[in-house]
């Protein structure tokens, strides 16, 4: 099959997939007796029409940037890390440990410690599946799924039996100290006399997420390790011939991937809840899959699609509030995006390739 221009692969295919997903979602909304145009209007005003909406959109987007980057890095080594959810859960545990047991004098120190701790915990949770894949050939998709469930059980046990303050019925840790409260966007923007809504939980973690995007870009395209990861993902035998060790690449890539997923804890645990609760990740690890597929392997793409999913999340919450459309609509949209950008990629790609081939033939004659 003839190749398409690069811009078509990067822009056109995700765009068509998105339009297909949106069209089917619109049909679903019609089917349950609501107006798709009105729903879209509500979502846009609810998620982007005020700094309140933007605050929530960016808060969700921050989560999705971390998990989306986690899946993206693994994709570059042709590993499908479906365990972002579990890694983010355990990363949240790492963040909570760093915040609870050390009396930090200032939030900035606590943030650095929480980043390290969350990333280390997340990476550790990815380490066993990674080692098993590298050394024993155990399929990483299955082991990371299993580790999601094991993570949920571990967290459940710790919150109910170990970390719950005495006398509390709620399976959650106690609140973190007031001194390590992360500044929200409201507090960050106030010195510049920008009035940003006080209520939403978007916080300084958003900036860390942007930094993470840059770091991942530099890692993948500007370092030797990134080159080795891409080479391994492209052709394993070729990479081995070039002296790249598969065991090293698999383990290191998964550690980075798990670490990125674990970093999510600084946003949802430290930034929003300010304590560790059950099910704090709320499926963000799985949304990372959709975000990574939309993002086409590039951190800039991940950033944009994370904002898109943040918008869908906040917009979906508004829809559930004002109409009879339940929040689960976003789960459907997420499924459709994964379906069209991931599994049915060829369905979108094949006709496009034919169109471009026909155009080229026309040009040459």
């Amino acid at each position: 099959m003839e190749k398409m221009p690069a811009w078509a692969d990067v822009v056109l295919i995700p765009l068509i997939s998105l339009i297909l997903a949106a069209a089917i979602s619109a049909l679903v909304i019609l089917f349950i007796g609501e107006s798709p145009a009105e729903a879209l209007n509500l979502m846009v005003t609810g998620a982007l029409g005020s700094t309140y909406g933007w605050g929530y959109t960016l808060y969700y987007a921050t989560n999705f940037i971390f998990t989306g980057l986690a899946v993206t890095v693994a994709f570059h080594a042709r590993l499908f890390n479906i365990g972002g959810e579990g890694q983010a859960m355990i990363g949240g545990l790492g963040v909570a440990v760093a915040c609870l047991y050390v009396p930090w004098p200032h939030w900035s120190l606590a943030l650095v410690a929480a980043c390290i701790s969350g990333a280390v915990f997340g990476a550790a949770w990815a380490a066993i599946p990674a080692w098993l894949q590298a050394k024993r050939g155990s399929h990483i998709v299955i082991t990371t799924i299993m580790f999601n469930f094991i993570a949920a059980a571990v967290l459940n046990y710790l919150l109910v039996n170990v970390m719950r303050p005495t006398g509390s019925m709620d399976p959650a840790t106690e609140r973190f100290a007031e001194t390590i409260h992360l500044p929200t966007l409201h507090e960050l923007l106030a010195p510049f006399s920008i009035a940003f809504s006080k209520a939403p939980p978007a916080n300084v973690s958003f900036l860390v997420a942007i930094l993470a995007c840059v770091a991942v870009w530099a890692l993948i395209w500007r370092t030797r390790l990134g080159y080795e990861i891409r080479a391994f993902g492209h052709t394993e035998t070729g990479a081995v011939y070039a002296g790249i060790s598969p065991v090293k690449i698999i383990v290191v890539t998964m550690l980075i991937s798990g670490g990125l997923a674990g970093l999510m804890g600084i946003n949802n645990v430290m930034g929003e809840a300010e304590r560790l609760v059950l099910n704090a990740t709320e499926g963000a690890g799985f949304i990372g899959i959709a975000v990574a597929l939309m993002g086409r392997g590039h951190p800039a793409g991940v950033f944009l699609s994370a904002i898109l999913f943040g918008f869908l999340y906040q917009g979906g919450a508004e829809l559930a509030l004002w109409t009879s459309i339940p929040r689960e609509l976003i789960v459907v949209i997420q499924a459709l995006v994964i379906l069209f950008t991931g599994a049915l990629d060829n369905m979108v790609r094949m006709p496009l390739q034919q169109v471009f081939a026909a155009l080229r033939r026309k040009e040459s004659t």
Partner: protein
Amino acid sequence: MDLASILQILESTIRLSTPLLLACLAGLFSERAGIFDIGLEGKMLAAAFFSAAVASMTGSVWLGLLAGIAASLVLSGLHGLASITFRGDQLISGVAINFLAAGMTVLIAQDWFRQGGRTPSLPSDARFNPITLPFADRVADVPVLGPVYSDLMSGNSILVYVAFLAVPATWWVLYRTRFGLRLRAVGENPAAVDTAGVSVVALRYAAVGICGVLCGIAGAYLATSLQAGFVKDMTAGRGYIALAALIFAKWRPWYALWSCLLFGVLQAVALRYQNIDLGSLVIPVQFMDALPYILTVVILAGFVGKAIPPRAGGQPYVKER
């Protein structure tokens, strides 16, 4: 522990193993034909909803079962389209199907019944009810064997018997029929099957279709027999446990029976005893919940026998030109 409580645990083991077994055999057909399926969960969930919804609207549990199977088959078709026809990533397709089912069931349930994403509770005549095997009442007084026959073997819903009969049936189809031989071959070496003039695509669609039917029965069992109606996310990870059982069974039907019974026992024990007190050591309930997944990882690691998946599993087949 006395006989009565052992019997109670075994009874609940049978009930809890049934959906696992059906889903596990479903996965077995699909994966033996070279199509990985992590969408078992989603197919069961869709079937659970549509079987409960149709049973509740028509009052006929058999129509409900058919609707459940149909819903599961639609998702199977989607999986086939993505992974066979368009040669997409089978794992990503499975993930998408799970989310699609999780979202759509609640959306439609809310639209049809307006009860917060659930169906109304099914009355007894719109459910699969326990069947009493012949002589069950008369032999109940015989020591040990009596209660085993009358409580354990008798008094289950018809779908339980279907599930357990599906094991020898699966074995027979896979190992004693021409279709089964070809199905296994297409999961190991599709090019050889193609060379022999047999359609790889048709075989794989057939396998995915059988998978859909079995998942449909599993979902219908959950919503119309084990429980009386559909609630949001009611499969609760059973599709993944079934997947774990399938790996634990190394993709073989009889082993699938034993591994599903084992995971069923674990669920039954976790359900009955919260924390198990062994004197000096207390096993927390969360450990019991996580045990199927831990066991699967151990098996996958190859420390206790090696689990070798079908060789062509997960790879789309591209016909040579």
